[in-house]
């Protein structure tokens, strides 16, 4: 073969070879087809474990029982029983150490998420008592009169 053909040929072979060599070092060993096929399962296998190790923030109401049993008993027996502690107090991760206090003075807007009245025919909203934000005790916070752990109970 003539030299003007060989030179670009060797160059191409050299570039391809260096890419393949670099690939061996750069692509992790566990990268490949792991799922049902190449289209949906071509990935780095260790990433699945990385996602499983992601930090859980919301601990669930049973984790509160150890220290706040009386609140949990009251809540479970109230119309608010379906509401998780962490829906109002925030995620319990890091509580009580180092996060000593979780929020317990939520503004009206938090209660209004469920209890805000509406003029539209939302059928689902019939599940909860409605409050007109503009008419009902505008300058006070809800918890000043109602106990969130048992809304049937009034706070003196």
């Amino acid at each position, binding site marked *: 073969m003539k030299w003007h053909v060989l030179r670009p040929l060797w160059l191409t072979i050299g570039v391809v070879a260096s890419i393949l060599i670099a690939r061996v070092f750069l692509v992790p060993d566990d*990268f490949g087809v*792991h*799922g*049902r096929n190449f*289209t*949906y*399962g*071509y*990935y*780095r296998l260790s*990433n*699945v474990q990385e*996602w*499983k*190790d*992601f*930090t*859980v*923030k*919301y601990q*669930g109401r049973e984790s509160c029982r150890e220290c706040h049993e009386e609140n949990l008993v009251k809540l479970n027996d109230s119309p608010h029983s*379906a*509401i*998780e502690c*962490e*829906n109002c107090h*925030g*995620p319990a991760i890091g509580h009580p150490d180092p996060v000593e206090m979780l929020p317990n003075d939520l503004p009206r*807007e938090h209660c*209004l*998420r*469920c209890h*805000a009245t*509406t*003029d*539209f*025919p*939302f*059928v*689902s*909203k019939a*599940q*909860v008592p409605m409050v007109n*934000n503009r008419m009902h005790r505008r300058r006070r916070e809800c918890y000043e009169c109602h106990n969130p752990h048992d809304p049937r109970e009034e706070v003196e």
Partner: protein
Amino acid sequence: MTCSRRHFLKEAVGGTLATVLPLSAFTFISSEEAKAALDSAKVRWAFLVDTTKCIGCGLCVSACKTENEIPYDAPVTRTWVERYVVTKDGQTHIDSPLGGRDGYIDDMIRDEEIPAEEVTKAFFVPKLCNQCDNAPCVQVCPVGATYQTDDGVVLIDREWCIGCGYCIMACPYGVRFFNPETRTAEKCNFCYHRISKGLQPACVQSCAFGARRLANLEDPDDPVTKIITTERVAVLKDEYGTKPHVFYIGLDASVR
């Protein structure tokens, strides 16, 4: 040439066996492989949304953002709640301010006041990733950074993602977005870190009305699977052929 009866029977039985038994029947697998195959066959995560129960409080959105470390005030979210208000003139008014993160505490829709007597129906539709079986977002990824796990959940490899955004364009449900903090594609993964530990996803746990529920379709005794298989449920954009695995109760024709 002679052919004894014994010889004929031998050949016939041998020939039948050779054609009936496929080659794969003779593949030997290690005990770990067998166990992995059995384990993975036990789970196919799916989701059931009951739109008739959702009251649009937005606690699921807020819990999701905190649990999954999504920037709280950025206009991006893994799950969101849409408000639909259908009026007599046939128009559908849809809004989802900040994904419904702070709930819907007034009747203003996109700064527009709609007279209540004009409204024929109103409802909320929570949305999240459909964990499709034929996920378009996975097909288009040029680097193999997104994939479907054996239990059906589509995950994103944040280390491998180059942030090109093809998947964001490909998803017909608009579920994917660009995470401004990790600078990678981002989407709901049913809280994979929680469900693989036996916990409920953050949005399911925070929903006080049971509007969101997780199902394992491979478990016939799962109460949510029973609802999906025996009751009337619908999926979003079935015509795209993506085989979505988020099922809806009470879906309306106006829902897009």
